[in-house]
């Protein structure tokens, strides 16, 4: 019996492994990179070797056996601070990407599919929002509404929303001309039926790729805001504000910034890899680069 279970277990492991192997490589790599960060965000207390808020060692130590990434300017463990920062950074990036995606896709697909005057008006509005450069708009919003995390999320989302809408509108326009959409219109399909049954499902692969680009941009924007001192407030750690501190002591502790810098790059890179993997998986060739660039200008 136990043997059977073992065999079955091994077989299911093997089939799971072969399923993983059949996925596009970038997707697998991206997910593998992201998993530790998700764990850090979920269980920072379990993973961090030290208390991230406690001053417990000589400041600005280089990496050593007990402090793997060294210590910061007041003597806190950098590795633990990096781990604790994951929650804030991941939450902000994912939440703002999700908000931007939902609003942008809804607005864009609708606008593109409906076309005519609705489209013209909506897109002019989007143009106006687009002409405020990313960080500037976010900064402006934070000046006005304060520095809480939710303002940060909404500000980043609002900044990314117009280009998402632009992009989804393109999809809507393309799909509007598809034969199956027209066939459905001929048979009396309502706007709602067509958007839900035909347009959205067929746009989804491309939009998912776009979503991962959004998440990646959100990580970078969030880090930039923290860097400027407008994100998470000390002593709460975030990768951006850690890098800011690192800059002040660059001549004394050149290795200070490695940890948070690598974290930001890995997370942003993981999202991009996932996007690239999804693109290969769905074989959508639409270039989502414009999206990344207009929202990512940091």
């Amino acid at each position, binding site marked *: 019996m136990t043997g059977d279970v073992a065999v079955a277990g091994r077989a299911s492991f093997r089939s799971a492994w072969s399923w993983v192997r059949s996925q596009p490589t970038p997707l697998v790599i991206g997910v593998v990179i992201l998993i530790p960060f998700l764990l850090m965000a979920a269980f920072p207390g379990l993973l961090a070797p030290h208390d991230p808020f406690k001053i417990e060692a000589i400041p600005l130590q280089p990496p050593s056996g007990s402090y793997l990434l060294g210590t910061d300017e007041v003597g806190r463990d950098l590795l633990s601070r990096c781990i604790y920062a994951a929650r804030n950074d991941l939450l902000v990036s994912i939440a703002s990407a999700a908000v931007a995606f939902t609003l942008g896709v809804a607005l864009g697909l609708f606008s593109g599919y409906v076309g005519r005057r609705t489209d013209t008006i909506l897109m002019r509005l989007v143009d106006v929002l687009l002409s405020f450069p990313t960080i500037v708009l976010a900064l402006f919003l934070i000046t006005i509404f304060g520095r809480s995390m939710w303002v940060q999320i909404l500000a980043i989302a609002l900044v990314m929303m117009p280009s998402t809408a632009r992009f989804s509108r393109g999809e809507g326009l393309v799909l509007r001309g598809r034969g199956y959409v027209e066939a459905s219109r*001929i*048979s*009396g399909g309502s706007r709602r*039926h067509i958007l839900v049954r035909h347009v959205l*499902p*067929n746009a989804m692969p491309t939009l998912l790729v776009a979503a991962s680009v959004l998440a990646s941009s959100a990580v970078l924007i969030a880090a930039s805001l923290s860097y400027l001192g407008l994100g998470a407030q000390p002593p709460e750690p975030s990768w951006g504000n850690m890098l800011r501190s690192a800059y002040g002591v660059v001549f004394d502790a050149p290795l200070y910034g490695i940890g948070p810098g690598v974290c930001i790059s890995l997370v942003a890179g993981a999202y991009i890899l996932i996007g690239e993997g999804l693109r290969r998986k769905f074989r959508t060739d639409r270039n989502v680069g414009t999206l990344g660039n207009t929202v990512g200008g940091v």
Partner: protein
Amino acid sequence: MAGDAGRGHLQVTGLSVEYAVGARRLRALHDVSLDVPPGHRMAIVGESGSGKSTLGLAVMGLLPRNSTVSADGVVLDGTSIAIGDPSALRRVRGRSMAMVFQDAKASLDPVRTIGSQISEVLAAHRVVPRSERRAEVERLLGEVEIRRANLVARLYPHELSGGMRQRSMIATALAGRPSLLIADEPTSALDVTTQATVVDLLHRLGSTGQMSTLLITHDLALVAGFADSVTVMYAGEVIETGPVTRVYSAPAHPYTRALLASIPSIADSRAATLGSIPGSLPDPTQPTAGCQFEPRCVVGNGREMCCTVRPVEVTVAGGGSARCHFPAELGAVSDEEAKVGPVRRAVARQAPVVQMSSIVKTFGRRGLSGSQGVTVAVDDVDLRIEQGESVGIVGESGSGKTTLARVLIGLERADSGETRIAVSERLEPVQRIPSDFAQFVFQDPGDSLNPLMSVAEIIAEPLVLRDGGRAARYLPQVNDLLESVGLRSSMAERRPLELSGGQRQRVAIARALSTQPKLIIADEAVASLDMSARGQILNLLAALQQQHGFAYLYISHDLSMVRHVCDRVVVMYSGRVVETAAADSLFADPQHPYTQALISAVPVPDPVVETTRRRMLLRTEIGDQQHSGEGCAFRFRCPLAQERCHSERPTLDAAAPHAVACHFRELAVESFRAPRASEVG
């Protein structure tokens, strides 16, 4: 060069090409041999997947990187061409041999002028000294019958009409004074009247003896009037070759015969169902040892010899050869399967199902610049479709035929005009035609079926939208519909991507039938299908009509097909109806000069007819002029145009059985019967 013997003697022996796709090897060409005598015009014909284009690219050395090519020899005018040596090939390309591609718009660099693209060939091969290049460019443009060459040389490709672009591309090919010209589907993207002039040009260029021409095409009718000899390809192999008259009159291979039977001819009215070839191309990754055509062959299907042994070339009486084990048996099975075709409807008028009157549809908007940018797609058109009738609308691209159909079905809203439909014996005006009154079959089934839905969901969608519920509720209807379009009910769970092109179009037809409409509009419904599948779909449509008695509106640029399936034909030009009549009457006695030109431009798949046929060729100048409201739409291209045609718009007598919108109807009739010598093809 080659002296008296002329130039362009191409000998290809044992040419094979494989593509590596992922881990699989795909056989594109297998042991192909050709012998094109100097100054000869040879056509390579085959369906998509036959390897005909690969053949052209292989000879030119232009295959993509994932290909492996091997050959016993490729020899042009006694000089061996090193098929594996890129730099040697480059020197020969454009110089000894040149190529013309299908899509001239995509094959010319959009950001360089025509002149510079010709002149760079002159420079690359040092054909003429630098100082003479400009003159040579103009000479070449003149050679391809482009007038005002010095103006055209300064234009960009997008500023030219399709025909002019294709001529310009031919000029770039001629620039190196090649001895072999390979033309890969050079006219498939062109309108039929333009196609005729381009084929004419290629024919003339190929008649000097200084160059041989290889015409690669799927269009058997086109070949008939063009080529000296024809080579038929199937699944990467040459299966038959011979003089064009012999191949067309006495095809020796079952495939050639079936292919010839599957194409409608504009010269015959509909008498029989079209021939069709069951099955589809073999899997190119798993070629069999035997004859590649065996699974679809009426003669050899299942025979051990055909399954296991590759046929050798056997010489055929009358010239040429064929790769078939049993060429002698082909005569025996001949025409037994020819059934009775669609019945010609009685001429007596029936009650109309649809009546469109004075439809006008424009695109673009009037902005600051006035009416500029506004295109009149449909300009005051009446259309009447009777019960159980098949009406065909023909015309070239831009004639407004598709727009008219889209207005009828409600995909576009007309600017003005009225559509009335028969509701219990009476005609009543409607805003939008109901989905159970009319349905639409699109050109490209790959596009008109949602790739994420199952066949059953697709077919049931009109019913779901009309009667509510879920798709599963309509499974019995779906099964009936599948059966009526000749698909097994097991197809219901498939997705469109798992089906062949012909099967997808059957699904689209089943969807159109689901609401039991009185009218089905078929917009180029077979244009995207391969030749052998076209016949099947047309036969199916005819059979369904006999069974259900609905009316068809066929939108098509293919006059041969329309002649085969339609009772009545409407000819459109530039948004207007120029002539309408019963099909037989229209094709036998076309009266509008445009209709005459159109019909005379359509090639007939019969070499004997083609050699004696006379063409009325229409010329186009730079860009096609848009007509304005005044006068006849056709006046800029009409050989008969006079003062009156510019000022007064000809009317169409809707009541006449054969209505023509032309001021000089009598003259027009004459011009067709006695074409001027200068315009003879």
